[in-house]
């Protein structure tokens, strides 16, 4: 049964006018299928227009609306309000932890994007590109499933204690992307990538706290990707050699007819 009313506790902070963050309570009457994002919209439309938060797609694909609800990083647009209300009908919404707050629930994610660019998230093709297409086996494609559907929402990044405690750690989102590129049979720079990832900011800085898995709204597994990268980084030259061979065989496939 839907409770008659819900209390939304939101952390507010505008660095221009406030000394420190404070909490505001808003009461509203949710429908059975009101999401947390809907509730925020209701507050912004009906109670306080100055409440600020990021959102765009409203169906868990743009990654704008990651917030910390009751201590967990989630996408508020895909979470029903009923699921997060406690038995007194209250819920606490805070901005993503460990990131500088711009205003209310909006955080500054520049470090997130810097680390993302650092792993060169794009494909680096080999010198001799096949005339028609790269041939990739179904097994090679399924191996990438774990990393492909990342929407870059930042939930894992800001759930990671290592991000909170140290500067410069590449972070689960970027390492997952690096995993995608290292494993991609069309990419030609795996040894180079692995050399950077094996540095002091890279895969070995992960303390296997698993918060990234808990936080991921897309059920991806950055920790497993990091473990795989660790193993590959130890034998990166052999790995690169096997990849070059694989690429040759991709370009001159044995034609069976």
């Amino acid at each position, binding site marked *: 049964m839907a409770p008659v009313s819900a209390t939304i506790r939101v952390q507010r902070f505008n660095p*221009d006018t406030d000394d420190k963050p404070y909490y505001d309570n808003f009461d509203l009457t949710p429908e059975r299928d009101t999401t947390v994002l809907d509730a925020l919209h209701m507050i*912004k439309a009906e109670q306080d*227009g100055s409440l600020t938060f990021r959102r765009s797609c409203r169906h868990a694909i743009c990654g704008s609306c990651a917030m910390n609800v009751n201590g967990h990083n989630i996408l508020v647009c895909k979470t029903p309000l009923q699921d997060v209300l406690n038995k007194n009908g209250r819920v606490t919404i805070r901005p993503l932890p460990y990131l500088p707050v*711009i205003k209310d629930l909006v955080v500054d994610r520049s470090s997130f994007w810097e680390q993302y660019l650092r792993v060169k998230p794009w494909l680096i093709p080999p010198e001799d590109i096949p005339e028609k297409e790269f041939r990739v086996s179904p097994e090679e494609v399924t191996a990438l499933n774990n990393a492909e559907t990342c929407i870059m929402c930042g939930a894992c990044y800001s759930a990671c204690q290592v991000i909170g405690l140290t500067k410069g750690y590449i972070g689960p989102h970027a390492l997952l992307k690096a995993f995608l590129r290292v494993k991609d049979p069309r990419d030609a720079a795996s040894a180079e990538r692995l050399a950077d990832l094996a540095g002091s900011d890279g895969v070995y800085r992960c303390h296997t706290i698993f918060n990234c898995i808990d936080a991921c709204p897309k059920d991806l597994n950055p920790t497993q990707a990091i473990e795989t990268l660790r193993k590959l980084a130890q034998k990166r030259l052999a790995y690169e050699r096997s990849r070059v061979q694989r690429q040759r065989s991709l370009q001159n496939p044995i034609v069976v007819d």
Partner: protein
Amino acid sequence: MDKSHRFNTDLLAAIETAHLLDFSEVIVAGALERKESRGAHARTDFPKRDDENWLKHTLAKKTDVGPSLSYKPVYVDWERYPPQERKY
């Protein structure tokens, strides 16, 4: 209402609404002129596609009295990919 000078999403929404209005005017003006049906542009009074007269882009310029329209030809590789009607 949000009156702050920092990440003001209310102001953003207001600006975006004005843009939405501008662009809806452009879309309606262009659609009224284009006397055919093509893709998502579907008219009951002109249900057929008309490549002879309308295989061209519509360009709109902002003026004081609303959008003014002009046209630009579409680049088509007639040899390799002659245009065809899409049928379902």
